[in-house]
């Protein structure tokens, strides 16, 4: 009953938040109710059905927890909200990069402030960013002469085991500070950078908040959730925050827009990703006639489908491979590789019809990803390429990033041209690579085509 009443109040403020709260108790999950109830003030929490440890953890962490607001300069209205927590007595705060990205990349328009659980508000400075793991180290600007309660990190030597309870804290949807109870499910499979799979509910606004073990020590930082699943959420392992704090503890605050930091880190990312992608090689036996590039399932995931024509036309088999990891870079995400191919059988069509259909499919490709504010239009290079007697039509198109110098998007299109009524068309997309690595990846991809061994 209490829940329903709270909701009726919340509707006027934030309809989205209310539906989420109402929906959760309907599901047979143990932690739906605590999330909703703990969102209330401490007085409410006493009468809500919170498990003993969740309550204890929240009460211990309450003073270390902050909400982080990005505020429009000179206007006072907030443009985004997230969570964060104190990690040192000097006032260092850890949160996600994506919580502070507007302030980091457009400091001329945005200010950062933190708000504590008891309502105290003060400005913040950005000390250092770890864009690849989506972390940011901040410092309270009013730290001089003040001591802060800080959360401690769980030692790396003591890993959690799967199924252990952990508690995620934050301020979901700007409703109020909340604790969400869930389970530790190990490291996410097929991630490029390790992330903890948290079996609990995260909502927007909780990003940057800490996930604590039973003893109240930080095991991870709330970062993301899957919208197509239930309680499939992700945490950044605490070890990266420890490293960030160690390296940035006494760094001077960022004075200008952080595009150079972003570019440097994305450069390092693309170098590592290109090396790993090329070193891992290809799967074998991916087509009866040709060698067709399909990557192994290490940090990419491939889905296949078969579409026989219902009207006596072209039969198609597809394979789509993509990475789960994308690097958030402010207005867009970057730093991924995706590839796919389609295998066409047009034996019922005849050569001319097949050629028309095959061309149509080769033409039907998207090349615009971001608005011209961020990226140039694509420029292409094309020709016939010989792969040990297998003729290919190959097209390489590239776009440059406007604010990330020397980073490019790469698209390679390939069509086999040895048969008059069948063929394979493939596409490689690599976002945010150096020109040299784009050339390496293109070569690696084109050379993966050939006759089946």
């Amino acid at each position, binding site marked *: 009953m209490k829940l329903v009443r709270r909701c009726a109040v919340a509707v006027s403020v934030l309809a989205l938040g209310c539906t989420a709260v109402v929906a959760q108790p309907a599901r047979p999950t143990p932690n739906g109710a605590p999330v909703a109830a703990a969102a209330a003030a401490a007085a409410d929490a006493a009468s809500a059905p919170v498990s003993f440890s969740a309550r204890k953890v929240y009460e211990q962490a309450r003073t270390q927890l902050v909400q982080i607001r990005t505020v429009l300069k000179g206007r006072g209205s907030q443009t985004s909200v997230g969570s964060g927590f104190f990690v040192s007595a000097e006032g260092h705060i850890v949160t996600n990069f994506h919580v502070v990205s507007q302030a980091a990349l457009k400091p001329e328009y945005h200010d950062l402030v933190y708000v504590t659980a008891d309502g105290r508000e003060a400005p913040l400075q950005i000390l250092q960013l770890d864009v690849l793991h989506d972390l940011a180290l901040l410092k309270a600007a009013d730290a001089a002469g003040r001591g802060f309660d800080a959360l401690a990190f769980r030692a790396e030597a003591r890993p959690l085991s799967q199924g252990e309870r952990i508690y995620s804290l934050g301020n979901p949807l700007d409703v109020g500070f909340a604790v969400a109870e869930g389970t530790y499910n190990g490291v996410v499979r097929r991630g490029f950078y390790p992330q903890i799979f948290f079996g609990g509910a995260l909502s927007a606004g909780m990003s940057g908040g800490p996930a604590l073990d039973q003893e109240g020590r930080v095991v991870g930082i709330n970062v993301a959730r899957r919208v197509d699943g239930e309680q499939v959420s992700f945490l950044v392992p605490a070890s990266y925050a420890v490293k960030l704090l160690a390296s940035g503890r006494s760094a001077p605050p960022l004075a200008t827009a952080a595009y150079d930091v972003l570019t440097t880190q994305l450069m390092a990312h693309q170098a590592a990703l290109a090396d790993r992608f090329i070193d891992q090689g290809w799967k074998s036996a991916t087509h009866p006639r040709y060698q067709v590039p399909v990557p192994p399932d290490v940090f990419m995931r491939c889905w296949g489908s078969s579409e026989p024509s219902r009207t006596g*036309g072209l039969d198609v088999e597809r394979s789509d491979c993509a990475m789960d990891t994308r690097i958030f870079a402010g207005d867009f995400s970057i730093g991924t590789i995706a590839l796919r191919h389609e295998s066409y059988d047009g034996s019922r069509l005849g050569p001319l019809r097949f050629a028309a259909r095959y061309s149509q499919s080769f033409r039907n490709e998207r090349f*615009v990803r971001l*608005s011209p504010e961020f990226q140039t239009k694509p420029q292409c290079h094309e020709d*016939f*390429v010989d792969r040990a007697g297998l003729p290919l039509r190959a097209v390489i198109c590239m776009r440059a990033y406007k604010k990330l110098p020397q980073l490019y998007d790469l698209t390679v*299109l390939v069509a086999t*041209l040895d048969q008059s009524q069948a063929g394979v068309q493939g596409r490689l997309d690599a976002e945010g690579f150096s020109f040299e690595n784009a050339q390496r990846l293109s070569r690696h991809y084109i050379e993966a085509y050939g006759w089946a061994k």
Partner: protein
Amino acid sequence: MGEIELPGSPADDADATAVAPLPLRIDAEGAVEPTAPVASRRRATRALLEVIDRDGHVRQVWTVQGWPARVGRALDNDIVLTDPHVAPHHFTLTQDEQGQLALVVGDTVNGVAIGLHRIAAGASSLLPRDAAAVDVVAGRSRLRLRLADAPVAPELPLAGVAVHTLRILPSLGIGLVLLAGIAFSSYLDSDPDTFSRLVGQALLAALSATALWCGAWALLSKTITRQSHFSWHLRVFMVAGLTLLALSAIPGLLAFSLSWPWLTDFSFIATYAVGATALYFHLLAIEPARPRLLRWVVATGAVVGIALTLWFNVQRTSRVGEELYMSHLFPPKLRLAQPLATDRFIAELAPLRALLDKKAKEAPSAEELGAGKDDDDDE
């Protein structure tokens, strides 16, 4: 001034002069010559002054039987024009002792133009002796003066009837080839199970489009020239259609075969040229008197259209051509260009770098920013 005949108003009535009252000619002996032929009995026509309407048709004909002949709006003129832009005594045609004709301009504000040559009030101009016709503009009246001594232009054959029957067969041939082409292109675009339905739709659409297009042009012709010229418009449309159909296939085939991507990148120029040519021939049936003007108008239109398309391409894609890459794939046997080794292909990618870096430094145009909003698929 009894030497001037009062004219019949429509052109067809020009023969009315033949019945004008003429004095019998008296010979030297004073005897009446009784059996002279009709033509010699009437007084010789020295000239014919035709009033031409906007479409080039003769509206009114005056016969001139003696000099001088005065032209103006006042009723005491030999030839009375009703145009309010003509002065009461606008000009006079005179002949000197040597038989040289001259046009003397009277008291007029607007003056007179002979061809492109303007003559102000009070001035005069000699008229050419041997021209088939002299064009004179007085006020807003277009006049044509034909002199008796001038050579007569040869008879024009009746183009319509004789040539029409000869052209039916080729037209029918073009029509059948066009329909076959449309049927073939819908064959290419359909699956085996959907072909019969699609080809019916395509042919029906083609026939309706032809009827509508040619019908509209015929209506325009009829309104302006009083002749519909339907078969002309139909032929223009079919030839243009056939050419466009060929243009939709041949550049793609050559671009694939020889690996010439620029061919399909700029094949729209040929399409524009065909469209402009078809437009010229359609317009020719409406304004046959001014082929040179029409050629200029159509050529200018085509050039402006091509230039605008190129400019728009640059704005939209930062490239001059239409296609980002050549996407026309044909059966393997039609490929003539040799494939490259991977190394060479990758090495040839290098020039893109400087180009992209240059573009990356340019601020996006306002138009691009507006257009880019819809394209953004990230977030």
